């Protein structure tokens, strides 16, 4: 029997084309022993929720630098729930103004990371969220 691996979907919803951050995080999670499914640029929330379902992931990581996080994050959360995947944890990385953070957390986003966030923090918090 093999040990249970943490499976993470890393996706970039919306229209900005900056995926360096998403790739850095994908690589860091890989080096932490997780299986990262990378979906690429310009995903709709529907595509992300569908991929999360097919891949049966534990965690979805969204990278948003377009400023559209207040629209995209709740939509992804809603679709995950509609698919019966409410236990999937959603993390958000990118440019998120401080004043949006409480609202996003209230919606159910497990962690939010801006520029300068350390990959160790991300790895630790992803691990803890899956355990809990």
């Amino acid at each position: 029997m093999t040990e249970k691996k943490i499976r993470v979907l890393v996706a970039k919803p919306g229209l900005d084309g900056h995926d360096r951050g998403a790739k850095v995080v994908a690589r860091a999670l890989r080096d932490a022993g997780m299986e990262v499914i990378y979906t690429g640029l310009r995903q709709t929330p529907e595509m992300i929720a569908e991929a999360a379902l097919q891949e049966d992931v534990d965690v979805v990581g969204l990278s948003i630098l377009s400023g559209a996080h207040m629209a995209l994050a709740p939509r992804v959360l809603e679709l995950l729930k509609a698919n019966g995947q409410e236990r999937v944890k959603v993390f958000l990385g990118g440019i998120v103004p401080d004043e949006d953070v409480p609202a996003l957390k209230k919606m159910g986003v497990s962690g939010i990371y801006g520029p300068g966030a350390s990959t160790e923090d991300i790895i630790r918090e992803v691990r803890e969220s899956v355990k809990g």
Partner: protein
Amino acid sequence: MTLSQSVRKGDRLALARLLTQVENDTLEGRAALAELFPQTGRAHLIGVTGAPGTGKSSLVNQLALHFRREGKRVAILAVDPSSPFTGGAVLGDRVRMRDLSGDAGVFIRSMATRGSLGGLAQTTAAMSQVFDAAGFDVILIETVGAGQSEVDIARLAHTTIVVEAPGLGDDIQAIKAGILEIADVLVVNKADRPGVENTERALKSMLELAHPTRHVFLHHGREMVVDAPVKAETKMWIPPILRTVATEGTGITELAAHVAAHAAHLRLSGDWAARERARLEAEMEALLVEALMTRFRAEVPNGGFESAVQKVHERTLSPWEAVQLLVNGRQE
């Protein structure tokens, strides 16, 4: 309702969860597989293999689109390597398959090799059985970027497509043993690039060496014809060599036609059943080895194995004698 019943009813979340159970080889997964087993054996398993960067994922994407137009339900198992150091993996095949998003007749699952070396993961076969039982007509299995000896796919798939691209090696590469030998269909992808004729010629000469066909070649400027040996079996399948440009969808219809022709050939010649049987035999052997190992560990007194290893390490016993001792309780 059990997980396997939900899967049979078409519940996609249940299918995803069962795939996880099977991938992790849990007791629940094994029980569900046992329940589903009678429903398997219907799908056409198509393997797609080749070196990294030859365009396997793009080709799988296009083939899936083609099969969807024919009204078939398509499952995709995309295998990527696990890191040998951390066990982690980045599975990136979905990036090339975004055309398939939003289609309920397609189910894409990425998986990591988790230490397996043959181009597939240990549980890829079992996961394809889940898709088979769930009623998918076609299961496309994409191997890791394979070099020369990752040939497990040929044991699993009914039809194996080997993907090449121009500029990857000369005709000596083509006559080496390994991945080219397992091809039922050979594809030269990226056929809009220079060098496609050379690649095609190398593959063709490799096939001519291996199969008894009629050869036509130029010798000192004159066309020479060598007829196929009289004994040549006309029923034999000779892998076609096809050109595609997967990113543009060029050549996909022809490829799908040859894949269908291969399936028809397998059924007509009886090879379909023979391959199926060989695969099940190999699967059972693997399970038997595992079961015997478990029983061995349970029955050999504690420390028996370790003390034998110690003796071998001290060179007081050879490995062969040690194994005889452990299995029979005495030396033969």
